[in-house]
C-alpha cells in the first residue's frame, strides 16, 4: 500500500530533479527547459497577473461550457426522437466536428462584442463531443428493454422516460469530460486576435516575443492545468456515479441512425442536398440576423463573389492558394506521421504489454491538454521554423490516436487470439493475423478524429510561430482589415477539413465493407 503511493511520488520527484538539473545547463538548457524552480519563481512574482489571465479564461470557458452543453444535449434529444432532423443537420454536425476552431475566432470577433467571441467559441468547440456522446447514449439501448416498454403499451416518450434518459447518463458524462478540457481551448482560441485585455490566449500572444522561457512554460502549464482540472472534476463525478467503464476519447463519428438507407432514392437526394446546403444557409442566415454590413460580414454568396468574380479575386485566389499549398502538405505530413507512429506503438503494446501500461497515463494526460499549451514550448525548442508546425501536428495527432488504437487492440476477442496461440502462433503472428485486422475500424475512427486536429495544430503553429500558411493568412488579413479574405480563408479551411473527413469516411466504407 505504502509502496503504491510512494512509487509515483518518487518517480515524479526524480523527473523534477532531472528537469531542474537540465534546466541549469548553460545556454540551451536555460533557453529551452527552464528549471521548475524558475517557473515557480515566475508564478510567485507575477501571481496577480497569472490569476487575472487564468480567471478570465476560466470565466468565459465556464459560460461557454454551460451554453454549449445545453444546446448539445437538447440537440441530441431532438435527433434521438426525430432521426430525420439529424439527417438534415448532418452537414452542420460534420462541419462543427471538422472545423479547425481557430478560424472561427477572427470571424466571431467581427460579428460579436466584448467577451462573446470567446464564449461562443468555447460553446461551439464542445457541441460535437457532447452531442455525439449523448446521442450514442440515448440510442444504444438494449432492444429488449424497448420491447418490454412496448408490451405494456408504452411509446417513444415512455422509452425516453424510463430507459433512454437514464442509460444515456454515463455516455453523457464521458462527453462532458472531454468538453470540460475543450472549452478551455475554445476560450483561448477565441482570445487570439480579439483584442481582449485578459485571458491566457492574450497572455500567450503578448509573451511570445519576449524570449522569457519560464513565462512561456508557466503559461503552457497554467493552460494545461486549467483544462485538466476541468477534465478531472468531471472524471471524478463520472467515476463516483457510474464507475469507470466508459470510453475516454471523444467519438469521431456520428452514432448510427436509421439514416437514409430505407428511403427512396429521390427523397435521399433531397435530404443530402438539404444537409449540404444547411451550413451555408446558416452562415448567411445568422449574418442576416446580426444586421452587419456585408463588407465586414459577407455571407456565402458575397464570399463567392469576392473570391471568384470581384475585382480583388485574382489577388485573393493567389493568396488563398499559396496558403493552402503551404498548410495542407504540412498537416497531411503530421497526420500521416502521427497516425503511423500511434498505430505502430499501439501494436507494439500487444507485443510488450508493459509498454502500454507505462505510456497510457501519459497519453491520457496529454490528449486532454489544450494544443495551444504546447505552442510556447515548441517555440523554445524549434524556434519559428517549419519543424515546429510539423511537430505540433504530430503531437496533436499522436496522443488521441494512440489512446483510441490501444483501446481497439485491447478489445480484440481473447478467443480469436487463443485460436492462433493454440496452433503455436507467436505474439507477432497473433498481431498480424488477428489483432491488426480486428482493429482496422479503430484505425479509421482514429483517422477521422485526428484529421481535423492535424489541421488545427498546424494552423495554431502558423498563427503563433511560423507566420506562414492559412493560420498566418487569417491573422494577417484580420490585421489588414481585409474582411473578404478572413471569411474566404475561414470557409476554405472548413471545406478542406470537411473534405478530409469525407475522404476518410469513403476510404473507411471501402476498407471495412
Amino acid at each position, binding site marked *: 500500500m505504502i509502496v503504491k503511493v510512494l512509487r509515483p511520488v518518487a518517480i515524479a520527484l526524480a523527473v523534477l530533479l532531472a528537469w531542474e538539473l537540465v534546466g541549469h545547463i548553460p545556454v540551451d538548457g536555460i533557453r529551452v527547459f527552464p528549471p521548475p524552480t524558475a517557473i515557480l519563481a515566475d508564478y510567485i512574482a507575477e501571481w496577480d497577473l497569472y490569476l487575472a489571465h487564468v480567471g478570465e479564461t476560466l470565466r468565459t470557458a465556464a459560460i461557454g461550457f454551460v451554453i454549449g452543453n445545453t444546446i448539445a444535449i437538447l440537440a441530441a434529444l431532438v435527433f434521438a426522437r426525430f432521426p430525420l432532423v439529424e439527417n438534415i443537420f448532418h452537414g452542420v454536425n460534420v462541419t462543427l466536428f471538422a472545423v479547425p476552431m481557430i478560424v472561427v475566432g477572427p470571424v466571431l470577433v467581427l460579428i460579436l462584442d466584448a467577451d462573446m467571441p470567446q464564449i461562443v467559441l468555447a460553446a461551439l468547440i464542445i457541441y460535437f463531443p457532447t452531442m455525439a456522446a449523448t446521442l450514442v447514449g440515448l440510442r444504444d439501448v438494449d432492444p429488449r428493454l424497448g420491447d418490454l416498454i*412496448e*408490451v*405494456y*403499451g408504452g411509446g417513444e416518450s415512455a422509452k425516453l422516460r*424510463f430507459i433512454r434518459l437514464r442509460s444515456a447518463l454515463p455516455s453523457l458524462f464521458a462527453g462532458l469530460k472531454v468538453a470540460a478540457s475543450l472549452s478551455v481551448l475554445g476560450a483561448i482560441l477565441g482570445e487570439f486576435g480579439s483584442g481582449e485585455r485578459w485571458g491566457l490566449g492574450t497572455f500567450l500572444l503578448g509573451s511570445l516575443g519576449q524570449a522569457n522561457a519560464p513565462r512561456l512554460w508557466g503559461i503552457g502549464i497554467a493552460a494545461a492545468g486549467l483544462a485538466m482540472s476541468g477534465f478531472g472534476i468531471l472524471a471524478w463525478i463520472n467515476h463516483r456515479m457510474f464507475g469507470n467503464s466508459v470510453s475516454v476519447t471523444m467519438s469521431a463519428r456520428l452514432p448510427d441512425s436509421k439514416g437514409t438507407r430505407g428511403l427512396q432514392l429521390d427523397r435521399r437526394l433531397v435530404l443530402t442536398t438539404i444537409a449540404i446546403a444547411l451550413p451555408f444557409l446558416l452562415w448567411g442566415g445568422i449574418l442576416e440576423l446580426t444586421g452587419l454590413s456585408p463588407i465586414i460580414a459577407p455571407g456565402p454568396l458575397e464570399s463567392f463573389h469576392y473570391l471568384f468574380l470581384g475585382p480583388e479575386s485574382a489577388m485573393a485566389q493567389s493568396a488563398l492558394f499559396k496558403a493552402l499549398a503551404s498548410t495542407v502538405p504540412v498537416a497531411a505530413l503530421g497526420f500521416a506521421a502521427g497516425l503511423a507512429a500511434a498505430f505502430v506503438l499501439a501494436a507494439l503494446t500487444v507485443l510488450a504489454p508493459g509498454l502500454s501500461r507505462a505510456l497510457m497515463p501519459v497519453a491520457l494526460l496529454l490528449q486532454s491538454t489544450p494544443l495551444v499549451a504546447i505552442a510556447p514550448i515548441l517555440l523554445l525548442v524549434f524556434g519559428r521554423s517549419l519543424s515546429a508546425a510539423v511537430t505540433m501536428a504530430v503531437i496533436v495527432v499522436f496522443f488521441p490516436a494512440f489512446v483510441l488504437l490501444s483501446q481497439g487492440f485491447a478489445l480484440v476477442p481473447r478467443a480469436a487470439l487463443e485460436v492462433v496461440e493454440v496452433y503455436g502462433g507467436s505474439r507477432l503472428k497473433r498481431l498480424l493475423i488477428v489483432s491488426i485486422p480486428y482493429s482496422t475500424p479503430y484505425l479509421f475512427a482514429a483517422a477521422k478524429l485526428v484529421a481535423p486536429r492535424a489541421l488545427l495544430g498546424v494552423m495554431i503553429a502558423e498563427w503563433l510561430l511560423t507566420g506562414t500558411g492559412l493560420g498566418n493568412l487569417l491573422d494577417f488579413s484580420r490585421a489588414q482589415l481585409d474582411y473578404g479574405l478572413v471569411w474566404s480563408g475561414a470557409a476554405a479551411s472548413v471545406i478542406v477539413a470537411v473534405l478530409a473527413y469525407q475522404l476518410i469516411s469513403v476510404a473507411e466504407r471501402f476498407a471495412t465493407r
Partner: protein
Amino acid sequence: MSRTPLKLTAADGAGPSGSGSSDVAVDHVSKTFDSAQGKLTALDNVSLKMQRGAFVAIIGPSGCGKSTLLRLIAGLEDATLGAVYVRGDDPKVFRAKGELGIAFQDPALLPWRSVYDNIALPLQVLGRSVKRADADIRELIDLVGLSGHQDSLPGQLSGGMRQRVAIARALVTQPSVLLLDEPFGALDQILRRTMNLELQRIWMQRRTTTMLVTHGIDEAVFLADQVVVMSAKPGRIAEIVDIPFARPRTPELMASPEFHELCDRLAESLFGGKQQ
C-alpha cells in the same frame, strides 16, 4: 403417425367474434422479413388457438419462427398476412390494457433499478399506482423466492435470480395472458429444473393463459397441456400434441417411461419436420 395438424381446422374461422373461451387466436398468419438475401419467410400460413387458462409450449428448430409467433402475439411485430387476436382484440389494443405479461430469454432488467423497482416498471409504464400495488409486489417477490432482495440491484444477483425477477415482473400486472420466450434458456440444467417447478406452482395458483417458447423438449412436456411442434423453412406448425399428465407434476415424472415416450415422439416429430 399422422402429420396432419388436426387442430388447425379447429382454428379456422377464428376472429374477433371467435368463441368466448379462446384467449389467443392466430388466424392464417404469414410473416416475411426483408433481408440482404431477399425475402425471408419466418411464418407460413400458421393458425393456432389457445383456450383460456391453457399452458401451451412451442418447440421447434432454430429459425422455425417460434419467437416470431410470440412476438406477433405481443404486438412487437405485425403479420404480413392474416391476423392475430388476443381476447378478441388486436394485440396492440390488448396490451395497452395491461393484461399481457412477457419474459424474454434475457431478463432485460434496468440495471439502475432495484428488484422492487424493476418489478414495478410495467405499472409505471401503464400509468398505474405503484403504491397501491405495494402488497402485490412484495407478495410476488416472495413468490419467486427473492424475499430480502427487494433492494438489490440486478448486478448483485445471480443469473437465476435475475430471471426470477423477470418472471415476477411479467406477473405484476396480473395478466390474463403470459408470454415466455425461452425464459430459462440461459440457465444451467439444475437451475432450469427448479425454475420449471416454480413456474408450474405459480401457474397453478393463477391459471394464467401461458405460452412458453422453448428449446427443451423435456421442459415443454413437463409444463404444458399442449405442445406445438414447428418446422423450419418456412416456419409452419408440424403437429400439436396433447400432454395428458395430471398436475401438479413432480420431478419423478421426468423419470417415468410415459414421459420419455412422449419426449421421444416429439423428438421424432422435430427431426421429421427438419427433413421436410
